[in-house]
């Protein structure tokens, strides 16, 4: 009994120690949003409070941060929605339906291959493709590119989640008279919600934080948050305060979602769990 509770104490302190390791630096980074640069670079923990970084970020002529947030949201939401729907549909078909082996191999093999290559090496080609059809700098270009960039991960994730459904459930639906499409929309789609939430979260985060693609494919009107934040890491002046302020604003939606919607997410994961 004593040994057990001692173990629990140790386990607990490891967990909370790790939580502190996450929380400490994060809070420190975010607190920089309210500090003068000189206090940031001298590593001051407590220092005079200022809104100057937010003023620079939101109202200076050089920065268009609200617009950037809006752009990131449009691109993140649209590309994630596309990726998740496409990946879930394809995953269902690849796992449960009779697809010619070469189709399965070609699709998954290519997805893996593409996923392994650094996307930095592609952006030049993408730029050429989009600008030759006049789509460079549009939402469409970035959304589609983010979609294809995140598709392999979403596809493999959804295959593992869809594959975890009991096969008999699919068969029962077939016996009940469902076509493949009906099986998907009425049975699979509602039941992989847990996996979809996880994949959605990851895909959205990848799209939200992508720098390389957004940098090359966006123009001034479609610039996203990471690119905007990166403009504060200048050659001769890293403006930590503005970066922190930008980070704080950019993670606000996710933060609120995590804090308020946390229970919802976990319950969503639970609801998706098939007993």
């Amino acid at each position, binding site marked *: 009994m004593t040994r057990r509770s001692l173990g629990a104490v140790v386990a607990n302190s490891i*967990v909370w120690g790790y939580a502190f390791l996450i929380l400490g630096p994060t809070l420190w980074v975010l607190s920089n949003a309210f500090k003068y640069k000189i206090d940031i670079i001298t590593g001051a923990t407590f220092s005079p409070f200022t809104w100057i970084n937010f003023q620079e970020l939101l109202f200076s002529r050089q920065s268009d941060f609200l617009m950037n947030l809006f752009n990131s949201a449009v691109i993140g939401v649209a590309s994630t929605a596309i990726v998740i729907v*496409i990946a879930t549909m394809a995953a269902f078909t690849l796992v449960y339906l009779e697809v010619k082996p070469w189709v399965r191999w070609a699709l998954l093999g290519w997805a893996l291959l593409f996923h*392994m290559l*650094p996307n*930095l090496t592609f952006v030049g080609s993408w730029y050429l493709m989009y600008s030759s059809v006049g789509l460079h700098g549009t939402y469409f270009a970035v959304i*589609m590119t983010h979609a294809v960039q995140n598709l392999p991960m979403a596809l493999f994730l959804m295959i593992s989640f869809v594959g975890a459904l009991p096969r008999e459930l699919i068969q029962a639906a077939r016996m009940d008279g469902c076509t493949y499409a009906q099986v998907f929309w009425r049975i699979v789609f509602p039941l992989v919600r847990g996996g979809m939430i996880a994949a959605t979260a990851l895909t959205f985060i990848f799209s939200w934080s992508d*720098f390389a693609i957004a940098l090359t494919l966006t123009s001034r009107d479609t610039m996203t948050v990471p690119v905007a934040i990166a403009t504060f890491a200048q050659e001769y002046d890293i403006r930590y305060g503005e970066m922190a302020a930008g980070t704080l604003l950019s993670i606000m939606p996710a933060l609120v979602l995590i804090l308020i919607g946390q229970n919802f997410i976990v319950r969503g994961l639970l609801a998706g769990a098939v007993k």
Partner: protein
Amino acid sequence: MAAHHTEIKARRNRRWIIFSLLPAATLFIVLTAFPVINLLGLSFFHVEWREGAAQFSLVGLDNFTRLFTQEDIFWAGVRNNIIFAVVAVSCQMVLGFSMALAVKTAGSRGRAALTGIFLLPIIVPPIVIGTMWRLIMGREFGLANTVLGLVGLGPVDWLGNPDLALASVIFVDVWHWTPFVFLLMLAGLESLDGEVLEAARIDTSGRWQQIRHVVLPMMMPTIVITLLFRVILSFKVFDEVYLLTSGGPGTATEVVNFSIYRTFFRQDQVGYGAAMSVVTLFSITLVIILARAFVQRRAARRQAAA
């Protein structure tokens, strides 16, 4: 009547298979076929820009022979990357899995708080992670040394000491990407059968046994897929290295993707950079195929034994 109905259904089903795979296939073909083929092709060329136009000269395998005979930095990067992948990914897997277990068994309030906290790092843009950790790990004024100073240690030159720099970069990567593992593991754990876990609690003595003999095997599919992602992504590591150390000091933190970036972009040697990409790609593919074969052979042997 029924036969007619069946035919309609069969047609609809065939249409579904096409409809469900077409968007993914189209995206891949339209957006990745050209870049990848372009990349493969480029690796046999030397490209110069003159008079506003690219001049491609076919150099055969020159880029590859140069990579294998005259290159130092890239191979230092390969070595670092392997260390990086092994250490960072193992830490992430262990930490992510343990924390997911901890959250799964924590009470509802602790669970909400912990999930929220654990997910924080991945919602911070990588560019900020790199910049800020460079500040935190700064020798002179960094938070890390300030904290160490409180207990009378340090200062440590986290990023400037060649023997320590890679470990520091790995630490930041673990800090940044453990939530990725955590989230997938939590999703996986949540989808485990509650009854089986219940039974496991009775059949096994102690928590460790339960994890080792029941939870781990049941989580294998999720673990394998997560591991695959992390290994691949760890070979694609770039942002952190770029912003923390730019590969230095010396070649202490050089990684493959950073070499490719430098060659491709900073030096604008697209042919040589493409060759690096191709070699990397083939190596990883080979490793995955070998690993797969190994796993399959082990599975087959176990089956034969059973």
